[in-house]
């Protein structure tokens, strides 16, 4: 049946026409539509997203990669799902990062009806099954999101201790709900940061609890040190920002698993070929796009304009790109 339809739409797919009616009907691209927008704080917004039918659900604490078009360009970022398991719609709660390209767009400029790209939920910051009888959650800032998904999924679990921190009272995401669930909320602006040594007072049985920690790197590092003897009880989630180049010319680039040093002025194509890597090419001057390779991580420098750019998955024209720090490129499979 599908084959017969494709004979009608070749070289396109039936979904390319069906998407004119509803973009969510795509079968090759998982998409979602923003169906509600809820302001949480001055800097944070919750987006309720209806995913296409291929969405397979999530476990509380998992995250989703989401592709957002900002000024015409697709960007992918990771957000923890903040809603409970199950249900038709998913929610993410985004807190704007200063200068943040995608977070500010999602918080301030994403109206109901916007179409986003999604990947299946992933991540192992999840509750074990059966759910442990005693839980401890330590969160700060936007780090509350995966934990909120857990709390909402657990409903009225009899024994969860939640210690949440945010700089000011106005900045607390889910403030009312946290209060209703009996969380201890700390305003670090007045009270200072949580010192994990205080746990002996605030939660004396912390060693016996399954602990879930999410927040800034400092908190996570402190927790890892504090739980050094009980690491099997500790679960952390890092909102690591994607690797960015520190700028500069030249660097080390991996073509597949071949590591090549690239001089400041050299193109990735020249440097790779000089090192004996077989690379596709054509015009060697940036016009034919025969030389593109997918970027696995790191960034590259456009030799024509000096612009430093690149996000994982971008296709890079190796003939007009140079190195800037480290980067990895995938080689064509054929």
């Amino acid at each position: 049946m599908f084959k017969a339809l494709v004979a009608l739409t070749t070289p396109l797919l039936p979904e390319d026409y069906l998407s004119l009616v509803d973009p969510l009907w795509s079968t090759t691209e998982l998409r979602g539509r923003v169906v509600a927008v809820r302001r949480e704080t001055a800097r944070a917004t919750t987006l309720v997203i209806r995913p296409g039918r291929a969405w397979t659900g999530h476990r509380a604490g998992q995250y989703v990669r989401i592709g957002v078009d900002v000024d015409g360009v697709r960007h992918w970022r990771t957000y923890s799902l903040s809603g409970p398991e199950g249900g038709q719609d998913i929610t993410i709660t985004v807190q704007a990062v200063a200068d943040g390209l995608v977070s500010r767009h999602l918080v301030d400029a994403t109206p109901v009806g916007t179409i986003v790209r999604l990947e299946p939920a992933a991540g192992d910051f999840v509750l074990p099954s059966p759910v442990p009888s005693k839980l401890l959650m330590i969160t700060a800032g936007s780090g509350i999101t995966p934990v909120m998904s857990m709390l909402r999924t657990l409903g009225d679990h009899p024994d969860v201790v939640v210690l949440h921190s945010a700089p000011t009272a106005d900045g607390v995401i889910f403030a009312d709900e946290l209060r209703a669930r009996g969380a201890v909320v700390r305003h670090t602006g007045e009270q200072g940061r949580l010192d994990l040594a205080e746990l002996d007072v605030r939660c004396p049985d912390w060693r016996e609890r399954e602990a879930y920690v999410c927040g800034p790197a400092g908190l996570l590092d402190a927790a890892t040190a504090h739980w050094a003897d009980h690491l099997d009880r500790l679960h952390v989630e890092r909102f690591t920002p994607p690797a960015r180049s520190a700028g500069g010319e030249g660097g080390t680039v991996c073509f597949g698993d071949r590591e090549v040093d690239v001089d400041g002025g050299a193109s990735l194509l020249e440097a790779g070929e000089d090192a004996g890597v077989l690379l596709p090419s054509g015009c060697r001057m940036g016009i034919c796009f025969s030389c593109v390779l997918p970027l696995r991580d790191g960034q590259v420098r456009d030799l024509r304009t000096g612009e430093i750019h690149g996000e994982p998955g971008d296709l890079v024209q190796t003939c007009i790109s140079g190195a800037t720090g480290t980067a990895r490129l995938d080689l064509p499979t054929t």
Partner: protein
Amino acid sequence: MTAVLDTPTGTPTPPVRTVASRPSPVAAGLTAAQVEELGRRLDAIRDRVVASRGADDAAYIHSVIRKQRYLEIGGRALLFAGVLPPAWVAGTAMLAASKILENMELGHNVMHGQWDWMRDPKIHSTTWEWDNTSPAAAWKYTHNYEHHTYTNVVGRDRDVGYGILRMSDEQPWRPYYLGNPLWNALLATFFQWGVALHDLEAEKIASGEKSLKSIWPQLKAIGRKMRRQFTKDYLVFPALAGPFFLPVLAGNATANLVRNLWSHAIIFCGHFPDGAVQFTEEQLADETRGQWYLRQMLGSANLDGGPLFHLMTGNLSFQIEHHLFPDLPSNRYAEIAPEVRALCAEYGLEYTTGPLWKQYGQVLRTINRLALPPRVAGSPPASR
């Protein structure tokens, strides 16, 4: 990046020489330094457009895609009622317009990477496949690489004559070329098939440069693509129409024919009207970025017209701008055309442009003239 040639500064080297058949370009008067300066100014135009690409451009291409798909659906639907002559005419016209948009403003331009910056895998040079018998991969090689890198270099740019026509005095005359006008008419009629076979570089097999075995995988890919395209337009859709098999078949065939004739005309007007210059292989040696730009400008010709005309040519009516910046979004060529034209005026370079009827008339005249041996045909028309 291209190697920068160490030209002794100050020497007024003619950066390009033309082949005998064409009027000598005024460019001969530019110094090497002027040519590089021109290159830098063109780079600046490019950088400015690149920096300002954004949501409006994305909205533009999304809207063209939507319109093309609605036109196609509407055209095919009307053709099902094609026993009624007005429905047949309207359906065929819509389908032809849709195919022209799909091949020219969408396929050709998307495959150039003009929209890759949006990072949308659905509108990307590496994934796009067009409604044409030529497979995208083969097209990108012969067109994006060979034609755009070696534009108008006789012997390197296979768009000069498509391996079957004599389009330059540099191509030695053979009695076969007496058929030049006829071959051209056939090429125009079966343009999509001609382009698909053109990608095979069949003439290289004749000359022994390529073995038959080496092109086998490519031949298979072309065969597969041709079969799918043929089945869609000439079997499946007519069959779906049941008793109206023939009107649908005729509508589809006519739409393909219209698209073939139109795209052939537009494409030939891009490089073969009077004033568009051809080059020899020696001129390629150590070409600088500036010289490359100059060759693109002098070797291309524009077409005058309104916004709808430009859209229906896939903005190839801005052939000069397209050849300077093949990867800039096509909707921006109109905006930079006046600047490019002003640069040409400033450097005393010819900016070839004219209405379609006039440019195509010149192309046909050249095709006829080159059918005859040089002694009989006489010299090419003098430049304005």
